[in-house]
Structure formats: structure tokens, C-alpha cells
């Protein structure tokens, strides 16, 4: 029963979280964004005390159900563990708690959190790790499917699906996600919740409270026949049936043992009485199915590389791809207040990246902002009606803003590059940047350049909001004649 409830709830949370992490939209994003906001570290980053208190109380009452139900990385590992158990039954065994490792990692994590060294915290954060896996590995497949459906329905005058670009936002983030995925899949396949109970800082923090949980799995000594099934099926390696003990700091309250016990000797119930005991030997983990798993992840990776190319027709001019210019200051999305605020709060879960419908956000490769989002405009620009990233961000790195507020946020300012500008370089009159500027920050002004009078753009930086429309629509390629420099602190009118 406990197991069924756990699986049902986990399925619901996991499905909803995947939906938003895939950027599925369907017009329900803002209604299901709460599943991201319930995540522990994002809530901590956002100083969302309500959620934090809720999670602590939850753990004090039920044990680490957070790890079994709410945490997507935990659920993902359960999926692999379940597959591992299919391959070989009764595969787990008890192992003592590796407290020194758990606490070392936690200390390192907390220190990095306090000094604001993002690369370590973002790498260790479980929810963020899962977000990156979805963004880098699953989203391309999801988009591929959507594009295929769009291609099919376009024959039937139907407009449910729209085609999206599939592109590599960051090689680094992809590699990190792939490695995380492979490592966790292998660990979970062989040993269940190894990561959660040795590395994961959230797991360690919650374990402090779980040790004192009100409801917990307990042995009924009178009924126990020492069959060892419970220990062999404990993915957290937390049951020592010989001693009749459960390590509640590692138990994730999954209910598998209760379900497995043929003698009704295990119960998930309020703290009361104790245990019984027997002996068995542990099974060796199976190495057999690893190859398949690695193969599968590699296939996922290859699919990502087959990016949709821009279709070029014969009767049409070839359009060169834009290249990202060097920016002295990276641009962070409206609502993130400042580079500092972004850096301090972002756990690099890629939720905003997945949800950006304009292909603007991508993970940073700067080591100090490792995989945190930044903006660039080769494929699109920050559209005025869109506030998606601010709606989904669970950490307070991007605060919720309305589209009206967004018009008053200056995330950067445009810079003109004379030698790239068409009126100067090839003599064609243009003015695209001025015509498209939504903030009326660009004016075309007659100037004498190289002995002739040409009409060139002049940017009023006080008005420029840094949306990147000018950069994106500038006809100069591969480098635009106008590009946006970030503002370290967003100027707000």
C-alpha cells in the first residue's frame, strides 16, 4: 500500500516536473511551476521559508519521502533501480553509513554556497542535475517528436504543433548532463540510492530530520522469519535484518520492504516498538546490463547532434548563420536583478533555458557562472510579450515580472559596430535596427563616413532595454553591426 501510494505520487510529480523541464508549455506552465518551487535547494536559494518549513515538517513526520516523491533525480534513480532489479532480483545488501563522506560533501557544499562559488553547488544540486539531463538529453528528443507531429499535421490544415529549432545550447552543459546521467544510471542500476545516501547534500540535510521521523519502517520481531528479502530489496542499503535495524537517515520511505515481506513483519507506523533478526549474505551486483545502458545513452546523444538545418531554396539567397559576439558582460534575463543575484541564487537547473521559446537563453560556459543562464541573440531575441523564464524560476534567480514591468528593465545596452553596418560596408540603406527597436532607442542619423554621407544608427542607451531585437534582425552576418552588452545591474526605470 505504502509502495503504491509512493509510486503514484512520484509518478504525478515526476510527470509534471518533466513537463515544465521539457518546456512543454501547453498553456499550463505557470500552473504546474510549483513542482519546481517545492524543490529543496531552489526553495533555499529563494529563501522560501514556507516551502522549507513544509519540507522539514514533511520529513519529520514521514521520513525522506521528499527523496522518493518530490526529487526528480531520486525518482529517475528508482526507475533505473527498478530496471536493475528486473535484471537481477534481490540484488541489494546492507552497508554501513558512510558518514564521513556525506558530511565532507555537505561541508564543501555549504561553504561554496556561502562564498557563492556556483560551479560546485550547481553540480551537486540534485534537482538541477536532473534539469540539465532533461534539457540536454530529453528535450531534443521531445522537440524532434513535436516537429515530426507538426510535419504530419501540416498536411491536414491543423495547427496544434509548431516546429521548433533543435540546437546545442552548450557543449559543456551537454557533456556534464551526459556524464551525470550515465554515472547515476549505472550507480542506481547496481546499488540503488548510492548517490542520494553518500553524495547528495539535500539527502544529507534531510537525513538529520529523518532520523527523528514520526512514521518509520519497523520490524515486528515476532513475525520476522529472517528471510532477508527486506534487506535484499532495500535500494538505500539501510536495512540490517541481522540486527533488525533500519538506518532512518538513509531510508527514503519507499515501502518496498514492507511490500516484499511475506510474513507481515515490517510496518510503516508511528514510533513504538522494535525488531527481530536473521542472517544472509549479500548478492554481488550484476555488471551484465551495463553495456545496454551505455549504448542507450550514447544513442540519445547522437540524436541531439542531428540538428535541424535551415532549409535553403535554390531561388533564394543563402543566409549565413549568425555568430555570438564577445560580450564583456554577460546578459541575464529580465527579473534577475543583477549578475550577482543570478550567480547567488541560480542552481543551473536549466528550467528557464528549456522554457525560453525564443532560443535566447543558454547555459553559460564561464566557470564562475557555470551553466547558469545567459542571453544571446543569434537565433532570436527577448520578445516583449514573454516572461516565461521569470514564471518558472524556482530559486529567486529570476524574479517574477509582468510584461509591463519588463518594458522598464534594462538588462543591457546596444553597441554599434561601424565597420559591419551595411550603409557603411556595402552601401545599401538599411535602418532595420531603428525600425524594429521596441523601446525607440535607436535613431538613424546622417553621418559623414569615408567621404560620403550615410544614414547610420545611434543608440540612446538610456532608453535601450537590451532585448536584442536589433542584434537579431541586423542583416550583417555572421557578426551583427549592433550587439548588446550586458548590464551587471539591471537598470529599472
Amino acid at each position, binding site marked *: 500500500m505504502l509502495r503504491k501510494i509512493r509510486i503514484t505520487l512520484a509518478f504525478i510529480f515526476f510527470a509534471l516536473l518533466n513537463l515544465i523541464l521539457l518546456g512543454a508549455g501547453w498553456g499550463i506552465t505557470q500552473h504546474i511551476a510549483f513542482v519546481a518551487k517545492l524543490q529543496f535547494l531552489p526553495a533555499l536559494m529563494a529563501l522560501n521559508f514556507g516551502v522549507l518549513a513544509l519540507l522539514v515538517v514533511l520529513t519529520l513526520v514521514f521520513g525522506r519521502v521528499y527523496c522518493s516523491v518530490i526529487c526528480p533525480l531520486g525518482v529517475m534513480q528508482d526507475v533505473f533501480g527498478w530496471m536493475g532489479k528486473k535484471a537481477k532480483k534481490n540484488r541489494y545488501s546492507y552497508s554501513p553509513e558512510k558518514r564521513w563522506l556525506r558530511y565532507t560533501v555537505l561541508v564543501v557544499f555549504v561553504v561554496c554556497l556561502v562564498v557563492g562559488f556556483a560551479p560546485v553547488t550547481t553540480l551537486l544540486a540534485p534537482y538541477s542535475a536532473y534539469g540539465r539531463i532533461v534539457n540536454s538529453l530529453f528535450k531534443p528528443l521531445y522537440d524532434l517528436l513535436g516537429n515530426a507531429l*507538426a510535419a504530419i499535421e*501540416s498536411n491536414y490544415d491543423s*495547427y496544434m*504543433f*509548431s*516546429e521548433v529549432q533543435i540546437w546545442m545550447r552548450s557543449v559543456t552543459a551537454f557533456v556534464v548532463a551526459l556524464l551525470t546521467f550515465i554515472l547515476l544510471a549505472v550507480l542506481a542500476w547496481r546499488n540503488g540510492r548510492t548517490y542520494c545516501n553518500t553524495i547528495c547534500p539535500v539527502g544529507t540535510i534531510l537525513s538529520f530530520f529523518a532520523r527523528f521521523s514520526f512514521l518509520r519502517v519497523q520490524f515486528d520481531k515476532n513475525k520476522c522469519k529472517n528471510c532477508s528479502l527486506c534487506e535484499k530489496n532495500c535500494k538505500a542499503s539501510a536495512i540490517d535484518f541481522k540486527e533488525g535495524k533500519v538506518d532512518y537517515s538513509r531510508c527514503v520511505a519507499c515501502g518496498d520492504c514492507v511490500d516484499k515481506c511475506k510474513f507481515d513483519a515490517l510496518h510503516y507506523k508511528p514510533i513504538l516498538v522494535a525488531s527481530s533478526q536473521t542472517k544472509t549474505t549479500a548478492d554481488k551486483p550484476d555488471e551484465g546490463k551495463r553495456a545496454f545502458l551505455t549504448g542507450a545513452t550514447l544513442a540519445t546523444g547522437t540524436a541531439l547532434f542531428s540538428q535541424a538545418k*535551415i*532549409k535553403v*531554396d*535554390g*531561388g*533564394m*539567397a*543563402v*543566409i549565413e548563420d549568425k555568430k555570438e559576439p564577445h560580450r564583456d558582460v554577460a546578459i541575464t534575463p529580465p527579473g534577475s536583478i543583477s549578475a550577482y543575484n543570478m550567480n547567488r541564487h541560480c542552481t543551473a537547473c536549466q528550467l528557464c533555458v528549456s522554457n525560453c521559446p525564443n532560443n535566447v537563453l543558454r547555459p553559460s560556459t564561464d566557470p564562475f557562472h557555470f551553466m547558469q543562464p545567459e542571453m544571446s541573440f543569434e537565433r532570436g531575441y527577448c*520578445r*516583449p*510579450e514573454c516572461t516565461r523564464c521569470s514564471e518558472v524560476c524556482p530559486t529567486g534567480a529570476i524574479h517574477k515580472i509582468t510584461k509591463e514591468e519588463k518594458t522598464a528593465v534594462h538588462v543591457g545596452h546596444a553597441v554599434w559596430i561601424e565597420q559591419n553596418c*551595411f550603409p557603411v560596408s556595402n552601401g*545599401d*540603406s*538599411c*535602418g*532595420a535596427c531603428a*525600425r*524594429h527597436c521596441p523601446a525607440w532607442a535607436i535613431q538613424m542619423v546622417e553621418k559623414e563616413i569615408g567621404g560620403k554621407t550615410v544614414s547610420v544608427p545611434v543608440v540612446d542607451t538610456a532608453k535601450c532595454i537590451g532585448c536584442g531585437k536589433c542584434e537579431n*534582425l541586423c*542583416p550583417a552576418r555572421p557578426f551583427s553591426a549592433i550587439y548588446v552588452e550586458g548590464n551587471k545591474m539591471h537598470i529599472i526605470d
Partner: protein
Amino acid sequence: MATTSVVLQACSKNSRQTKSSDGSAVTDNSPFEQMTLRENPNNGDKVSLLGFGMMRLPVEAGGTARENPDSPIDQQAVNDMIDYALEHGVNYFDTSPAYCQGLSERSTGIALSRHPRKDYFIATKLSNFSPETWSEKESKAMFERSLVELKTDYVDYLLLHGIGMSGGGKDAMNAFYGRYMDNGILDWLVEQKKAGRIRNLGFSYHGDIKVFDMLLRWHDEGKYHWDFVQIELNYLDWEYANEINPRNTDAVYLYAELEKRNIPAVIMEPLLGGRLAKQPAAITRKLSERDSRFTPAAWAFRFAGTPKGVLSVLSGMTYLEHLQENVRTYSPLEPLDDSEWTFLLNLARDIYELKAIPCTACNYCMPCPYGLNIPGIFSHYNKCIAEGTMPSAASNENEYQRQRRAFLVGYDRSVPKLRQADHCIGCNHCLSHCPQRIDIPHEMQKINRFVESLKQQIV
């Protein structure tokens, strides 16, 4: 313009459609009567009222070169259509060195040369649009190459192509002088006519009325004789060409000028690139209510064929089905009576009010140096008008959201993002290429503003 599901009345003698046993409307495959022929007053040529325009030939990948520019012309389909056309009395074939990315003449030559030369008339043009081909040498070479491509030693109808269009950075008048007068080419063509290599010499007109008037004045003065003139004529352009675009001239004027000189008129754009064949339901309903025997395309063809001075009505046909339907419409022509004529002219008002962009998808503007798919953008916009799915403030909320999505998703599907209207920089290179004289950059900005307002939901 394939047979539409029109409610059928009792079949009269002239019925174009009939009912199959299951009650659905099917095309009548019974033998046609004779194709209507018009006599050229200059030399007695009996020309079919339906002329075959060779500018929208099918390509192997499907559709025309506009949809699939890289695909080769489907020669088998061209052969089949030309065979069918000749078999059913169509004997006027109009091509140009510029059509189908320069491959139309060759394809036409291959298909036609399989038949006796006396069975058909070839019309082609001196399409020296590019200033590099304005020289005497290049222009003459163009004509000679046409003969080679068409596998013939004479052209029945030769046209100066696109008179009245500007070009080479010059206005229409100077472009005309640059292309045909300063280089002596017009005089040379007159000589070729005397030598029998050209049987009829004329011009096709788009654009600046000053050039049209001047050429007809020359005709009056006996300076040059025009055996025929090709003009754009249809029931929308008859009285609205000038209202749609103040720089254009109503067809009623152009035709009257030709008629009073007894110069035969060859008609182009009878359907405005298909726009008069595909119309909003409100328009087709009126047409059906008036006489459901005729499809919207058939109505337009009847209009264009009704004036007696019309020698041939050209249709750039891609599909055999369109050819069959058009052949049927003119076998024989059932001329419009006065009330029908007035009815169509009144209907033109309704069509004008739709404010579609007057693009006929001729592709002359392409390639845009900045990669835009100009006819693709216009045709998506016009398609939404024609299908009555244009989102507007007048629609109710649900309908608006549905139409908005259909417009935006459909836009991305029919034109890749990088080739959409927002990438127009207003360089104006396209302006001189457009025979309809559309202010393309202006329209692009208009469409982009519309798209923006849809995206921001502020229509």
C-alpha cells in the same frame, strides 16, 4: 481551381459539371465542343482563346519552381499537358527566356517540337531586364538563343518584355530606351520581322503609362507597327487597378486604347496568379448564387475572353486538371452578357475591399539579396484573407485565438523564420522587378507590424 463542390442545378446544354451516380459533383468528361478561336486581323492567324503560359511549369518535386526551386522541370508532365492542349485546340504557347529560372523555353521547345510546326504559335520575349544584357550584342544573342532553345527558325509572336517597368537604376522611360532604342534593337527586330524570323511584333506592358501611351503614339504616327499588345486584364484590374495601386492603370483604359486602334490584345493574369480562382467563401457564394455552373476560375476566364478584341487569354498552368478546366471553359466561350459583366464589376468592389496584396507570385523579385521569400510571405497573407481566417479584432475571443495560432504557426511553416518579413531591411532592390509595382518593402513592414501585433496579442 479544380472542380469545386458547387450545388448543381438541373444540367443544361452548357453544363460544365454533372452528378455521378453517388451524387457527388464530378468533372464532365464528355467531348467538348470546339475551342473558341479568334482571328488575328493582321494575318488571319486563328488563335485559340486559351493561351498556354509557360511560366509556372511543374517540377519533379511537385508544384512549381517557386515551391521547389532546386527541382528540375517535370518534362513528362509538360509533354503530356502540351499534347492535351494541342489535342483540344490550344495553339498559342507563351514563354520567355526569363521563365522558370531560364529553363522554360527549352522545356517548351522539347515538348512542342514533337508536333508539326504549323500546328501552333510560339510567343516569346526579349527579356533583357538586366543592364548587362542591354547591349546590342547581348540582346541579339538572347533572341538567337530563344530560337535555338525553342528548336525553330521563327517566332510567331515576339514581345518586348515588361515595357513600363523601371530597371538598372533608371525610371521606366529611360529603362525602355536603354533596353530597346539606344542599342538599336527595336529596329533590328523590325528587320527580323521583314526577314520572316518574327511573324508578329508586340510588347507586354506593366507599369508606367507614359511608355504605353508613347508606344501607341508611335503606332499612330506610323513609326512602329504593333501587331499585338499584351496587357493585364481581369475583372478586378478592369476598374480597380489604379485604386489598388495608384501607380497602375485600369485595364479598361488599356483595352480601349488597343481596341480603337484594332490592335489585338493578348491577356495576362486573367486570374491574378490564381487569386481570382481561390476566393473567400463570401465571394464564391455570390458567384455560385449567380450561376453555379461556373467555377470562380471559369467566371474570370469568361470575363477576360468576352471583349472581342482579345486574341488569346494566357494562363500559366501547372496542373493538367487546371488545363482541362480552362479548356472546358473556352470550348466554346460563353461570353458574359451585360448583366453578368456588371455583376463581376460589382463583385470586384468586394474583392478590392479585402485588401489582399496584389502579388501574383510571378517570382520576378526573387532572389531577394537578404534571403526573404517575398512571394511566400505574400501568399501566406493572401491565403488567410482568401480562406477568411484572418484574425481580427472583430472575431470573438475563441475564434481570434484559433485564427491567431493558425496564422502564426502557418506563417512559420510556409516561410522559414529567417526568410520572414521582419528581415526586410528596406534596401529597395526588389522594387524595379515587380510587374505589379508593389511597394514590397512597405508591404513587408506592414505585414511585420501585423505579425508583431498578433504575437503580442494587441490586434
